[in-house]
């Protein structure tokens, strides 16, 4: 497994604001990664650093083993489809696809043609007149047909349900047939999470999670019941969230329950429910009171 991205203590400051705060991680070739986090957590900044559109304030970043800045060897292997991409004036959708063939060395025009039919792209319309959803679809078609060894989608999910489903399907199909590294950055987690192999979560510029998606699915659970009963369960565990409705209390706790504990819960009349990735992230991100919980993940 070769490492295609390696970041060490990567930092980016904009004046007083620290957008990326000393993060270290590595991405391996051929996996589908999710870069998750709330809006403003630093995801797009990180991606712009990866593609040398922005300059780091500190730390190191290697892509395909080299610095990406002004590096054709590296840049020619990256396709970065950003959110709200603006195209040169007067370009039509057809122009976008035609130009993409020149910009991306591994462009597959036939595949692009198939995809643009699938996503119903209006080839003759000016790009500036497109709706957000159609613009996203254009980005997806370009991103997939580029077949770039490192393909990055920044917030690609501004589509309707049918188009989203089509995206997941096409992405998987092409990934299986042409394995490459794909990075999907989004704040909408649950639908896309089943496609991800590894998940990185940014919160206020810090990398708080860097794990297998599967491992995260059993990271926490919620126990609901009367306050006193729940209390017996929460003893000795880290609580990362909680709610109260009348006399009912629910607590979200880190860890797992084994069979014995399940029996215990059932006996006490407590309800145990799993915690989705989305909920896990909500609990772990951006409130100071949750920082402690985050540190024990």
């Amino acid at each position, binding site marked *: 497994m070769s490492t295609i991205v390696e970041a060490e203590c990567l930092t980016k400051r904009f004046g007083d604001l620290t957008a990326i705060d000393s993060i270290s991680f590595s991405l391996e070739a051929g996996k589908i990664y999710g870069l998750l986090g709330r809006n403003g957590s630093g995801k797009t900044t990180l991606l712009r650093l990866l593609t040398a559109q922005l300059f780091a304030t500190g730390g190191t970043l290697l892509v395909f083993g080299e610095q990406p800045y002004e590096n054709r060897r590296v840049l020619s292997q990256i396709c970065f489809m950003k959110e709200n991409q603006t195209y040169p004036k007067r370009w039509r959708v057809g122009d976008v696809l035609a130009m993409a063939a020149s910009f991306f060395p591994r462009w597959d025009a036939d595949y692009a043609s198939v995809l643009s039919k699938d996503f119903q792209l209006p080839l003759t319309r000016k790009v500036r007149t497109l709706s957000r959803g159609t613009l996203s679809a254009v980005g997806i078609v370009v991103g997939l047909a580029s077949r770039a060894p490192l393909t990055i989608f920044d917030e690609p999910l501004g589509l309707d349900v049918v188009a989203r489903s089509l995206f997941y399907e096409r992405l998987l199909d092409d990934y299986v047939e042409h394995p490459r590294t794909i990075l999907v950055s989004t704040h909408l987690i649950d639908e896309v999470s089943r496609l*991800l192999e590894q998940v990185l979560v940014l919160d206020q510029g810090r990398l708080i999670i860097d794990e297998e998606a599967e491992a995260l699915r059993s990271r926490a659970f919620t126990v609901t019941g009367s306050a006193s009963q729940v209390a017996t369960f929460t003893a000795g565990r880290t609580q990362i969230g909680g709610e109260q409705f009348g006399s009912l209390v629910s607590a979200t706790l880190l860890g797992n329950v084994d069979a014995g504990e399940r029996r215990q819960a059932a006996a006490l009349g407590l309800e145990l429910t799993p915690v989705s990735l989305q909920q896990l992230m909500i609990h772990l991100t951006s409130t100071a009171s949750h920082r402690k919980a985050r540190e024990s993940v």
Partner: protein
Amino acid sequence: MEYLIDENRPIFVQIAERIEEDILAGRLAEEEQVPSTNQFAALYQINPATAAKGVNLLVDQGILYKKRGLGMFVATGSRERLMEKRRELFFEQYVVAMLREATRLGIEEEQVIEMIQKGAKVP
């Protein structure tokens, strides 16, 4: 078939469970080939690595084995092994739960036994 995957539980476990179900129900015979991880991935719209993890789980348990160049196959005797595993769980999953519910509803032990016997007579 996507909606059959519960995203809140580890998916690879669910893949393994499905294969187990298929073996127990006879949909997958011993020595029969199991669908490839890519096929699972496409069917459930999940990452192929996750599907592979589920398959490997069963390989580790001896339920499946790999034939080089051909794929994954159901091991001989796996059905019996799975049945045994389920039998062990039966007590926990069904009997204990049943008794707990009975207690909650105020049904006496003898009544429960009567019900079981009555149920056994129904074809």
